[in-house]
Protein backbone atom coordinates (compact mmCIF):
# COMPACT_ATOMS: atom_id res chain seq x y z
CA UNK A 1 0.00 0.00 0.00
CA UNK A 2 2.80 2.29 0.87
CA UNK A 3 4.47 1.55 -2.47
CA UNK A 4 1.29 2.42 -4.30
CA UNK A 5 0.90 5.59 -2.38
CA UNK A 6 4.37 6.72 -3.51
CA UNK A 7 3.36 6.37 -7.14
CA UNK A 8 -0.08 7.86 -6.92
CA UNK A 9 1.00 10.99 -5.07
CA UNK A 10 2.84 13.09 -7.64
CA UNK A 11 2.06 16.19 -5.61
CA UNK A 12 4.42 15.04 -2.79
CA UNK A 13 7.63 13.82 -4.46
CA UNK A 14 9.86 15.52 -1.81
CA UNK A 15 8.13 13.76 1.06
CA UNK A 16 8.47 10.39 -0.66
CA UNK A 17 12.22 10.83 -1.05
CA UNK A 18 12.46 11.85 2.57
CA UNK A 19 10.76 8.66 3.65
CA UNK A 20 13.03 6.57 1.43
CA UNK A 21 16.11 8.28 2.87
CA UNK A 22 14.90 7.78 6.44
CA UNK A 23 14.21 4.12 5.82
CA UNK A 24 17.66 3.67 4.27
CA UNK A 25 19.37 5.34 7.25
CA UNK A 26 17.28 3.27 9.64
CA UNK A 27 18.22 0.10 7.77
CA UNK A 28 21.90 1.01 7.91
CA UNK A 29 21.67 1.75 11.64
CA UNK A 30 20.07 -1.62 12.29
CA UNK A 31 22.75 -3.34 10.18
CA UNK A 32 25.48 -1.47 12.10
CA UNK A 33 23.95 -2.43 15.44
CA UNK A 34 23.76 -6.06 14.35
CA UNK A 35 27.40 -5.91 13.29
CA UNK A 36 28.49 -4.39 16.63
CA UNK A 37 26.46 -6.97 18.52
CA UNK A 38 28.02 -9.76 16.46
CA UNK A 39 31.55 -8.56 17.17
CA UNK A 40 30.81 -8.01 20.88
CA UNK A 41 29.42 -11.51 21.21
CA UNK A 42 32.34 -12.94 19.29
CA UNK A 43 34.84 -11.06 21.43
CA UNK A 44 33.18 -12.18 24.63
CA UNK A 45 33.18 -15.79 23.36
CA UNK A 46 36.87 -15.56 22.47
CA UNK A 47 37.63 -14.06 25.91
CA UNK A 48 35.60 -16.80 27.63
CA UNK A 49 37.50 -19.45 25.69
CA UNK A 50 40.81 -17.78 26.46
CA UNK A 51 40.03 -17.79 30.19
CA UNK A 52 38.91 -21.40 30.00
CA UNK A 53 42.12 -22.53 28.32
CA UNK A 54 44.25 -20.28 30.50
CA UNK A 55 42.84 -22.06 33.52
CA UNK A 56 43.28 -25.47 31.90
CA UNK A 57 46.90 -24.77 30.91
CA UNK A 58 47.54 -23.32 34.36
CA UNK A 59 46.54 -26.68 35.87
CA UNK A 60 48.89 -28.56 33.53
CA UNK A 61 51.73 -26.20 34.42
CA UNK A 62 51.08 -26.66 38.16
CA UNK A 63 51.15 -30.41 37.71
CA UNK A 64 54.32 -30.20 35.65
CA UNK A 65 56.06 -28.17 38.37
CA UNK A 66 55.61 -31.01 40.88
CA UNK A 67 56.12 -33.80 38.36
CA UNK A 68 58.69 -36.49 39.10
CA UNK A 69 59.90 -38.80 36.33
CA UNK A 70 59.43 -42.51 36.92
CA UNK A 71 60.04 -45.58 34.78
CA UNK A 72 56.31 -45.87 34.17
CA UNK A 73 55.83 -42.22 33.28
CA UNK A 74 58.99 -40.74 31.76
CA UNK A 75 56.94 -37.86 30.33
CA UNK A 76 54.51 -35.35 31.82
CA UNK A 77 50.96 -36.62 31.27
CA UNK A 78 49.01 -34.35 28.92
CA UNK A 79 45.20 -34.79 28.93
CA UNK A 80 43.69 -35.44 25.50
CA UNK A 81 41.64 -32.23 25.65
CA UNK A 82 44.78 -30.16 26.14
CA UNK A 83 46.74 -32.02 23.47
CA UNK A 84 43.89 -31.52 20.99
CA UNK A 85 43.54 -27.82 21.79
CA UNK A 86 47.23 -27.31 21.08
CA UNK A 87 46.69 -27.98 17.40
CA UNK A 88 45.49 -24.37 17.19
CA UNK A 89 48.25 -21.78 16.84
CA UNK A 90 46.70 -19.12 19.10
CA UNK A 91 46.21 -21.64 21.90
CA UNK A 92 49.80 -22.85 21.54
CA UNK A 93 50.85 -19.23 21.95
CA UNK A 94 48.68 -18.97 25.08
CA UNK A 95 50.44 -22.05 26.49
CA UNK A 96 53.89 -20.58 25.66
CA UNK A 97 52.89 -17.31 27.33
CA UNK A 98 51.78 -19.13 30.49
CA UNK A 99 54.87 -21.33 30.54
CA UNK A 100 57.25 -18.40 30.10
CA UNK A 101 55.54 -16.50 32.91
CA UNK A 102 55.73 -19.50 35.25
CA UNK A 103 59.33 -20.28 34.28
CA UNK A 104 60.43 -16.73 35.17
CA UNK A 105 59.21 -17.30 38.74
CA UNK A 106 60.56 -20.83 39.25
CA UNK A 107 63.99 -22.32 39.77
CA UNK A 108 65.48 -25.75 40.39
CA UNK A 109 63.56 -28.89 39.51
CA UNK A 110 60.34 -26.94 39.01
CA UNK A 111 61.99 -24.81 36.31
CA UNK A 112 63.56 -27.88 34.67
CA UNK A 113 60.14 -29.52 34.54
CA UNK A 114 58.66 -26.50 32.78
CA UNK A 115 61.42 -26.67 30.17
CA UNK A 116 60.63 -30.37 29.76
CA UNK A 117 56.94 -29.54 29.19
CA UNK A 118 57.88 -26.86 26.63
CA UNK A 119 59.88 -29.45 24.73
CA UNK A 120 57.38 -32.22 25.12
CA UNK A 121 54.71 -30.04 23.49
CA UNK A 122 57.24 -29.01 20.78
CA UNK A 123 56.59 -25.37 21.63
CA UNK A 124 60.25 -24.53 20.95
CA UNK A 125 59.44 -25.01 17.26
CA UNK A 126 56.87 -22.20 17.49
CA UNK A 127 59.43 -19.94 19.16
CA UNK A 128 62.06 -20.81 16.54
CA UNK A 129 59.61 -20.09 13.71
CA UNK A 130 59.13 -16.58 15.09
CA UNK A 131 62.82 -15.86 14.50
CA UNK A 132 62.23 -15.84 10.74
CA UNK A 133 59.00 -13.87 10.89
CA UNK A 134 59.25 -10.56 9.00
CA UNK A 135 57.60 -8.75 11.93
CA UNK A 136 60.33 -7.55 14.31
CA UNK A 137 58.14 -7.74 17.42
CA UNK A 138 57.47 -11.43 16.80
CA UNK A 139 61.19 -12.06 16.30
CA UNK A 140 61.88 -10.31 19.62
CA UNK A 141 59.15 -12.37 21.30
CA UNK A 142 60.62 -15.61 19.94
CA UNK A 143 64.07 -14.68 21.22
CA UNK A 144 62.73 -13.92 24.68
CA UNK A 145 60.85 -17.22 24.81
CA UNK A 146 63.93 -19.22 23.80
CA UNK A 147 66.08 -17.42 26.37
CA UNK A 148 63.65 -17.86 29.26
CA UNK A 149 63.15 -21.52 28.36
CA UNK A 150 66.94 -22.02 28.27
CA UNK A 151 67.07 -23.23 24.66
CA UNK A 152 70.84 -23.44 24.30
CA UNK A 153 70.42 -25.58 21.18
CA UNK A 154 69.22 -22.53 19.26
CA UNK A 155 72.39 -20.52 19.91
CA UNK A 156 73.49 -20.34 16.26
CA UNK A 157 70.22 -18.77 15.18
CA UNK A 158 70.18 -16.40 18.14
CA UNK A 159 73.81 -15.47 17.58
CA UNK A 160 73.05 -14.44 13.99
CA UNK A 161 70.46 -11.96 15.29
CA UNK A 162 72.93 -10.20 17.64
CA UNK A 163 73.92 -8.05 14.66
CA UNK A 164 70.39 -7.70 13.22
CA UNK A 165 69.35 -4.49 11.51
CA UNK A 166 66.40 -3.93 13.86
CA UNK A 167 67.56 -2.50 17.18
CA UNK A 168 65.00 -4.30 19.36
CA UNK A 169 65.73 -7.68 17.77
CA UNK A 170 69.47 -7.09 18.12
CA UNK A 171 69.08 -6.03 21.76
CA UNK A 172 66.94 -9.04 22.65
CA UNK A 173 69.30 -11.47 20.89
CA UNK A 174 72.37 -10.04 22.67
CA UNK A 175 70.60 -10.22 26.04
CA UNK A 176 69.42 -13.77 25.31
CA UNK A 177 72.92 -14.98 24.42
CA UNK A 178 74.36 -13.46 27.60
CA UNK A 179 71.51 -14.87 29.66
CA UNK A 180 72.23 -18.35 28.28
CA UNK A 181 76.03 -18.31 28.19
CA UNK A 182 77.24 -15.58 30.57
CA UNK A 183 80.63 -14.13 29.60
CA UNK A 184 81.05 -16.66 26.79
CA UNK A 185 77.96 -15.17 25.21
CA UNK A 186 79.75 -11.85 24.81
CA UNK A 187 81.56 -13.19 21.76
CA UNK A 188 79.15 -11.12 19.66
CA UNK A 189 81.28 -8.14 20.69
CA UNK A 190 83.93 -9.47 18.25
CA UNK A 191 81.70 -8.82 15.29
CA UNK A 192 79.00 -6.23 15.98
CA UNK A 193 79.29 -3.13 13.86
CA UNK A 194 76.23 -1.41 15.37
CA UNK A 195 76.41 0.68 18.55
CA UNK A 196 75.54 -0.73 21.96
CA UNK A 197 73.14 1.77 23.52
CA UNK A 198 73.67 2.99 27.09
CA UNK A 199 70.56 1.10 28.16
CA UNK A 200 71.76 -2.10 26.50
CA UNK A 201 75.15 -1.81 28.20
CA UNK A 202 73.45 -1.50 31.61
CA UNK A 203 71.21 -4.43 30.75
CA UNK A 204 74.14 -6.67 29.75
CA UNK A 205 76.12 -5.73 32.86
CA UNK A 206 73.11 -6.63 35.00
CA UNK A 207 72.80 -10.02 33.31
CA UNK A 208 76.52 -10.65 33.81
CA UNK A 209 76.38 -9.98 37.56
CA UNK A 210 75.74 -13.65 38.29
CA UNK A 211 78.40 -14.96 35.86
CA UNK A 212 81.93 -15.97 36.70
CA UNK A 213 85.13 -16.30 34.69
CA UNK A 214 85.76 -13.16 32.63
CA UNK A 215 87.58 -14.04 29.38
CA UNK A 216 90.71 -11.89 29.79
CA UNK A 217 92.22 -12.41 26.32
CA UNK A 218 88.91 -11.29 24.76
CA UNK A 219 88.89 -8.21 26.94
CA UNK A 220 92.22 -7.13 25.40
CA UNK A 221 90.68 -7.45 21.94
CA UNK A 222 87.47 -5.60 22.83
CA UNK A 223 89.47 -2.73 24.35
CA UNK A 224 90.87 -2.04 20.89
CA UNK A 225 87.66 -2.79 18.96
CA UNK A 226 86.86 -0.49 16.06
CA UNK A 227 83.39 -0.11 17.59
CA UNK A 228 83.58 2.76 20.10
CA UNK A 229 80.64 1.51 22.18
CA UNK A 230 82.30 -1.91 22.52
CA UNK A 231 85.40 -0.20 23.98
CA UNK A 232 83.20 1.83 26.38
CA UNK A 233 81.25 -1.28 27.40
CA UNK A 234 84.45 -3.26 28.00
CA UNK A 235 85.76 -0.52 30.29
CA UNK A 236 82.48 -0.60 32.22
CA UNK A 237 82.73 -4.38 32.46
CA UNK A 238 86.32 -4.16 33.77
CA UNK A 239 85.24 -1.64 36.41
CA UNK A 240 82.22 -3.70 37.42
CA UNK A 241 84.28 -6.90 37.73
CA UNK A 242 87.29 -5.13 39.33
CA UNK A 243 89.71 -6.73 36.87
CA UNK A 244 92.93 -5.27 38.34
CA UNK A 245 95.09 -7.38 36.02
CA UNK A 246 94.08 -5.33 32.97
CA UNK A 247 94.95 -1.93 34.51
CA UNK A 248 97.80 -1.28 32.00
CA UNK A 249 95.47 -1.90 29.05
CA UNK A 250 92.87 0.42 30.60
CA UNK A 251 95.52 3.11 31.10
CA UNK A 252 96.30 2.90 27.36
CA UNK A 253 92.71 3.95 26.66
CA UNK A 254 93.52 7.33 28.26
CA UNK A 255 95.10 8.06 24.86
CA UNK A 256 92.07 6.86 22.87
CA UNK A 257 90.87 9.11 20.04
CA UNK A 258 87.29 9.04 21.30
CA UNK A 259 86.49 11.34 24.29
CA UNK A 260 83.73 8.96 25.50
CA UNK A 261 86.24 6.09 25.72
CA UNK A 262 88.79 8.27 27.52
CA UNK A 263 86.12 9.39 29.99
CA UNK A 264 85.14 5.79 30.68
CA UNK A 265 88.81 4.85 31.08
CA UNK A 266 89.20 7.57 33.75
CA UNK A 267 86.15 6.27 35.64
CA UNK A 268 87.36 2.68 35.24
CA UNK A 269 90.82 3.51 36.62
CA UNK A 270 89.09 5.17 39.56
CA UNK A 271 87.27 1.90 40.28
CA UNK A 272 90.43 -0.19 39.95
CA UNK A 273 92.37 2.34 42.09
CA UNK A 274 95.88 0.95 41.71
CA UNK A 275 98.85 2.64 43.38
CA UNK A 276 99.86 4.45 40.19
CA UNK A 277 96.33 5.53 39.21
CA UNK A 278 96.65 9.11 40.51
CA UNK A 279 99.90 9.57 38.57
CA UNK A 280 98.35 8.19 35.37
CA UNK A 281 95.38 10.51 35.67
CA UNK A 282 97.39 13.67 36.35
CA UNK A 283 99.62 12.82 33.37
CA UNK A 284 96.55 12.53 31.13
CA UNK A 285 94.96 15.71 32.53
CA UNK A 286 96.49 18.35 30.19
CA UNK A 287 95.24 16.58 27.06
CA UNK A 288 91.66 16.24 28.29
CA UNK A 289 88.58 18.32 27.47
CA UNK A 290 86.51 19.87 30.26
CA UNK A 291 84.43 16.72 30.92
CA UNK A 292 87.60 14.63 31.10
CA UNK A 293 89.32 17.10 33.41
CA UNK A 294 86.33 17.19 35.76
CA UNK A 295 86.19 13.36 35.76
CA UNK A 296 89.90 13.17 36.63
CA UNK A 297 89.47 15.62 39.51
CA UNK A 298 86.43 13.70 40.81
CA UNK A 299 88.34 10.43 40.58
CA UNK A 300 91.35 11.89 42.38
CA UNK A 301 89.02 13.01 45.17
CA UNK A 302 87.50 9.56 45.37
CA UNK A 303 90.69 7.53 45.42
CA UNK A 304 92.55 9.93 47.72
CA UNK A 305 95.32 11.87 46.02
CA UNK A 306 97.72 12.68 48.86
CA UNK A 307 100.63 12.42 46.43
CA UNK A 308 99.08 14.88 43.98
CA UNK A 309 98.53 17.89 46.26
CA UNK A 310 100.86 20.11 44.23
CA UNK A 311 98.95 19.23 41.06
CA UNK A 312 95.60 19.98 42.72
CA UNK A 313 96.92 23.19 44.25
CA UNK A 314 97.86 24.39 40.75
CA UNK A 315 94.34 23.74 39.44
CA UNK A 316 92.85 26.13 41.99
CA UNK A 317 94.26 29.01 39.98
CA UNK A 318 92.70 28.00 36.65
CA UNK A 319 90.11 30.46 35.28
CA UNK A 320 87.21 27.95 35.12
CA UNK A 321 85.10 27.92 38.29
CA UNK A 322 83.88 24.37 37.61
CA UNK A 323 87.47 23.12 37.73
CA UNK A 324 88.18 25.19 40.84
CA UNK A 325 85.15 23.69 42.62
CA UNK A 326 86.00 20.11 41.62
CA UNK A 327 89.62 20.67 42.72
CA UNK A 328 88.46 22.05 46.08
CA UNK A 329 86.21 18.99 46.51
CA UNK A 330 89.13 16.66 45.72
CA UNK A 331 91.33 18.47 48.24
CA UNK A 332 88.67 18.34 50.97
CA UNK A 333 88.20 14.60 50.36
CA UNK A 334 91.95 14.00 50.51
CA UNK A 335 91.82 14.85 54.20
CA UNK A 336 93.88 17.00 56.56
CA UNK A 337 96.67 17.74 54.07
CA UNK A 338 94.17 18.76 51.43
CA UNK A 339 92.38 21.09 53.84
CA UNK A 340 95.72 22.66 54.77
CA UNK A 341 96.35 23.20 51.08
CA UNK A 342 93.07 25.10 50.80
CA UNK A 343 93.83 27.16 53.88
CA UNK A 344 97.22 28.12 52.48
CA UNK A 345 95.74 29.30 49.18
CA UNK A 346 96.65 33.02 48.79
CA UNK A 347 93.18 34.19 47.66
CA UNK A 348 91.20 32.20 50.21
CA UNK A 349 89.29 35.29 51.39
CA UNK A 350 88.50 36.55 47.91
CA UNK A 351 85.47 35.79 45.75
CA UNK A 352 84.82 33.33 44.16
CA UNK A 353 87.36 31.14 46.03
CA UNK A 354 85.84 31.78 49.47
CA UNK A 355 82.39 30.63 48.18
CA UNK A 356 83.88 27.65 46.33
CA UNK A 357 85.87 26.45 49.34
CA UNK A 358 82.88 26.93 51.62
CA UNK A 359 80.72 24.92 49.21
CA UNK A 360 83.24 22.04 49.03
CA UNK A 361 83.66 21.92 52.82
CA UNK A 362 79.90 22.07 53.48
CA UNK A 363 79.22 19.24 51.00
CA UNK A 364 81.79 17.07 52.75
CA UNK A 365 80.40 17.80 56.23
CA UNK A 366 76.89 16.89 55.06
Amino acid at each position, binding site marked *: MFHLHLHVSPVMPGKAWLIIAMLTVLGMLVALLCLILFFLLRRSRVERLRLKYQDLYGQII*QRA*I*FWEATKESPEIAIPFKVARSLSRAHLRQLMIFQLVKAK*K*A*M*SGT*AAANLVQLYHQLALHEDSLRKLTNPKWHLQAQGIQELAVMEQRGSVTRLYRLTNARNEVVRREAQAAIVQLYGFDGLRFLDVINTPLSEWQQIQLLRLLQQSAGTPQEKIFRWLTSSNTTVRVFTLRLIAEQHLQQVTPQVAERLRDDCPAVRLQAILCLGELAATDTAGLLTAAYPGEDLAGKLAILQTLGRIGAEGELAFLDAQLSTPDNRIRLETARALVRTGEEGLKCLDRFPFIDQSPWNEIFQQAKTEWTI
Partner: protein
Amino acid sequence: MKILVAEDEPILIRVIEMRLKRDGHEVQLAEDGQQALDRLEEGPPDLIITDIMMPYASGLEIIAAVRAKSWPKVPVIILSAMGQEDVVLEAFQLGADDYITKPFSPNELSVRVRRLLTAK
Protein backbone atom coordinates in the same frame (compact mmCIF):
# COMPACT_ATOMS: atom_id res chain seq x y z
CA MET B 1 49.08 -24.58 60.48
CA LYS B 2 47.11 -21.81 58.79
CA ILE B 3 49.11 -19.92 56.14
CA LEU B 4 47.96 -16.81 54.28
CA VAL B 5 49.40 -16.53 50.77
CA ALA B 6 49.09 -13.17 49.00
CA GLU B 7 50.23 -13.28 45.37
CA ASP B 8 48.63 -11.80 42.26
CA GLU B 9 50.11 -14.23 39.74
CA PRO B 10 47.46 -17.01 39.32
CA ILE B 11 49.83 -19.88 38.47
CA LEU B 12 52.27 -18.97 41.20
CA ILE B 13 49.65 -18.73 43.94
CA ARG B 14 48.29 -22.17 42.98
CA VAL B 15 51.80 -23.66 42.95
CA ILE B 16 52.48 -22.27 46.44
CA GLU B 17 49.08 -23.51 47.59
CA MET B 18 49.80 -27.02 46.24
CA ARG B 19 53.22 -27.16 47.90
CA LEU B 20 51.92 -25.98 51.28
CA LYS B 21 48.93 -28.33 51.18
CA ARG B 22 51.29 -31.22 50.47
CA ASP B 23 53.11 -30.22 53.64
CA GLY B 24 49.81 -30.50 55.51
CA HIS B 25 49.06 -26.81 55.98
CA GLU B 26 45.73 -25.07 55.72
CA VAL B 27 46.07 -22.38 53.04
CA GLN B 28 44.19 -19.10 52.70
CA LEU B 29 44.61 -17.39 49.34
CA ALA B 30 44.52 -13.68 48.51
CA GLU B 31 44.92 -12.67 44.88
CA ASP B 32 45.57 -9.02 45.64
CA GLY B 33 46.65 -6.83 48.53
CA GLN B 34 43.14 -5.78 49.54
CA GLN B 35 41.97 -9.40 49.73
CA ALA B 36 44.93 -10.13 51.99
CA LEU B 37 44.05 -7.23 54.28
CA ASP B 38 40.43 -8.46 54.39
CA ARG B 39 41.61 -11.97 55.30
CA LEU B 40 43.64 -10.53 58.15
CA GLU B 41 40.45 -9.07 59.62
CA GLU B 42 39.16 -12.65 60.02
CA GLY B 43 41.92 -13.45 62.50
CA PRO B 44 45.64 -14.15 62.67
CA PRO B 45 47.19 -16.83 60.43
CA ASP B 46 50.21 -18.79 61.70
CA LEU B 47 52.38 -17.46 58.87
CA ILE B 48 52.07 -15.07 55.93
CA ILE B 49 53.70 -15.36 52.52
CA THR B 50 53.29 -12.20 50.50
CA ASP B 51 54.41 -10.80 47.19
CA ILE B 52 55.60 -7.20 47.31
CA MET B 53 54.05 -5.71 44.17
CA MET B 54 50.31 -6.36 44.14
CA PRO B 55 47.22 -4.44 43.09
CA TYR B 56 45.27 -2.38 45.68
CA ALA B 57 47.76 -2.89 48.54
CA SER B 58 51.44 -3.81 48.49
CA GLY B 59 53.17 -6.49 50.52
CA LEU B 60 54.70 -3.71 52.63
CA GLU B 61 51.22 -2.48 53.60
CA ILE B 62 50.31 -6.02 54.59
CA ILE B 63 53.37 -6.33 56.83
CA ALA B 64 52.58 -2.94 58.40
CA ALA B 65 48.95 -4.03 58.98
CA VAL B 66 50.05 -7.30 60.65
CA ARG B 67 52.56 -5.59 62.87
CA ALA B 68 49.98 -2.98 63.88
CA LYS B 69 47.76 -5.71 65.33
CA SER B 70 48.14 -6.82 68.91
CA TRP B 71 48.60 -10.47 67.90
CA PRO B 72 51.44 -12.70 68.99
CA LYS B 73 54.15 -12.41 66.35
CA VAL B 74 53.07 -13.81 62.97
CA PRO B 75 56.13 -14.67 60.80
CA VAL B 76 56.11 -13.05 57.35
CA ILE B 77 57.99 -14.28 54.27
CA ILE B 78 58.16 -11.89 51.35
CA LEU B 79 58.43 -12.87 47.70
CA SER B 80 60.47 -10.36 45.76
CA ALA B 81 61.72 -10.05 42.21
CA MET B 82 65.43 -9.65 41.48
CA GLY B 83 66.64 -6.08 41.81
CA GLN B 84 64.17 -5.15 44.56
CA GLU B 85 66.85 -4.99 47.26
CA ASP B 86 65.67 -1.59 48.54
CA VAL B 87 62.11 -2.82 48.98
CA VAL B 88 63.35 -5.97 50.72
CA LEU B 89 65.27 -3.82 53.20
CA GLU B 90 62.16 -1.72 53.79
CA ALA B 91 60.17 -4.91 54.36
CA PHE B 92 62.68 -6.08 56.97
CA GLN B 93 62.48 -2.71 58.69
CA LEU B 94 58.71 -3.11 58.82
CA GLY B 95 59.09 -6.53 60.45
CA ALA B 96 59.38 -9.18 57.72
CA ASP B 97 61.16 -12.36 58.87
CA ASP B 98 62.50 -13.85 55.66
CA TYR B 99 62.46 -13.32 51.93
CA ILE B 100 62.63 -15.39 48.78
CA THR B 101 63.72 -13.99 45.45
CA LYS B 102 61.92 -15.02 42.28
CA PRO B 103 62.78 -17.28 40.55
CA PHE B 104 62.48 -19.65 43.49
CA SER B 105 62.00 -23.34 44.10
CA PRO B 106 58.77 -24.46 45.82
CA ASN B 107 60.90 -26.89 47.85
CA GLU B 108 63.00 -24.03 49.15
CA LEU B 109 59.86 -22.16 50.16
CA SER B 110 58.63 -25.25 51.97
CA VAL B 111 61.87 -25.48 53.97
CA ARG B 112 61.76 -21.81 54.92
CA VAL B 113 58.14 -22.08 56.03
CA ARG B 114 58.97 -25.11 58.17
CA ARG B 115 61.95 -23.31 59.73
CA LEU B 116 59.92 -20.24 60.67
CA LEU B 117 57.03 -22.27 62.04
CA THR B 118 59.38 -24.39 64.15
CA ALA B 119 61.12 -21.31 65.52
CA LYS B 120 57.79 -19.67 66.38
